[in-house]
């Protein structure tokens, strides 16, 4: 095993654990995903492009990715704020709020979707105030952005929070000694430290929002060309037994997931290097 000599793997169990890991991974993840790719490979290139660039599909990309970016930006801005406030300040109910941030993780997506749709519908708790103003949220693209913000919320907060906790007080004190105002300290010292984790949280929240189905379809309206998200389009094509179309679009989404995963991993590598 000259390959491993350099690293001195002396602990037992390597073959067994790695073997089982790869087996389980293949059976559950790799082989099924490859089924998707093979199925789509059956299409000719022209057919494939034709399916994934159809007007309705393009509209769904616009709705899905557009809403996801807006939601991720909202989450980044307010997520940093919430993380900062939770770590740095004391106020009554802080611990409860801290626990509450994990709610979108714990709530089943269908429950989240129905609840949001109810609250923001014209008769709902919030909707009844917004409707007279002409702002319709439920069953419009705005509702999609709202649902995506809800489900992506914990990602930014939980990614940025540990970094805020680890900020060394000495750095801020040094900045003050050197004559910086509080704003300068925040902008030039603290913000660069938080930036990698903010970007990671943004990417995570975006990736989750793009793929989400359950919490969005209840509030979305689901009208083709206007408020139809790509996952819903895949399901619709499946129901019409258009397996080719469904797998083609699913492949596009899978590619996006791969890319996002790559971006997130690179960002995390960057932030780890920065932290050292």
């Amino acid at each position, binding site marked *: 095993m000259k*390959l*491993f000599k350099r*690293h001195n*793997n*002396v*602990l*037992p*169990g*390597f073959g067994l*654990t*790695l073997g*089982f*890991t790869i087996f389980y*991974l293949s059976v*559950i*993840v790799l082989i*099924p*995903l490859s*089924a*998707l790719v093979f199925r789509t490979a059956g299409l000719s290139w022209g057919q494939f492009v034709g399916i994934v660039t159809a007007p309705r599909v393009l509209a769904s990309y616009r709705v899905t990715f557009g809403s996801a970016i807006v939601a991720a930006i909202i989450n980044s801005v307010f997520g940093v*704020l*919430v993380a900062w*406030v939770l770590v*740095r*300040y*004391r106020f009554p109910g802080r611990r409860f*709020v801290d626990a*509450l941030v994990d709610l979108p993780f714990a*709530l089943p*997506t269908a*429950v*989240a979707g129905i*609840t*949001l749709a*109810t*609250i923001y519908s014209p008769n709902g708790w*919030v909707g009844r105030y917004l409707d007279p103003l002409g702002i319709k949220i439920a069953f419009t693209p705005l509702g999609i952005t709202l649902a995506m913000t*809800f489900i992506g*919320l914990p990602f930014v907060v939980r990614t940025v929070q540990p970094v805020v906790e*680890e*900020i060394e007080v*000495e750095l*801020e*004190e040094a900045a*003050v000694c050197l004559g910086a105002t*509080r704003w300068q300290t925040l902008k030039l010292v603290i913000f660069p430290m938080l930036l990698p984790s903010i970007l990671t949280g943004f990417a995570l929240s975006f990736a989750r929002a793009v*793929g989400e*189905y359950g919490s969005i379809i209840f509030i979305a309206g689901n009208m083709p060309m206007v408020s139809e998200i790509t*996952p819903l389009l*895949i*399901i619709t094509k499946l129901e019409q037994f258009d*397996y080719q179309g469904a*797998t083609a679009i*699913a492949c596009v*989404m*899978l590619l996006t*997931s*791969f890319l996002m*995963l*790559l971006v997130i991993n690179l960002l995390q590598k960057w932030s780890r290097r920065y932290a050292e």
Partner: protein
Amino acid sequence: MSAPIKKYHAKSATDHAQSEPALVRWLLIAIALVFLTLFLALPLAAVFSQAFEKGLSVYLVALREPDTLSSIKLTLLTAAVTVPLNLFFGVTAAWAIAKFSFPGKNLLITLIDLPFSVSPVISGLIYVLIFGLQGWIGPWLQDHDIKIVFAVPGIILATIFVTFPFVARELIPLMEAQGKEEEEAALVLGATGLQTFFSGNPPQHQT
């Protein structure tokens, strides 16, 4: 020689070098709380208020309906099967990744993370593509009258896929931070592999 690094703990910020003026602080707290109320507290309150809208008795009656009971049973059954499986996998994978160096380790970690970023719709679709009527082994399954898609096994498979990375993702950084010294010491002192794993690790593995 350097003093231990001070972690910042929220305290009443009388020291203005380390915090913002009081007005700014309370403004930020207010904005954060309004945002969270709108997006988190309201939905949470709405779930409960709607459930109990017509009173506790109506809620209990709805809970006892056969459809509700069978769906709860199905959900619990799925969780009971998938959690131990993924737990076993997570611990195994974390052991293989954290305690050994091998080429392709980063690729393996990325692949384990893959279900996390894939849409839930796709995670169901791929199993339909294999086990469904038009799938790879669909016709064989139909000949033998085995139902996977649109039945409990399919639900369990899809749930395993979706919750696949969670245990591993939590354990890997933890076990990497622990290092190998304890296990190597145990080996030197004559423990077998399983002995090392079970007696050396329980406290850290409680996560």
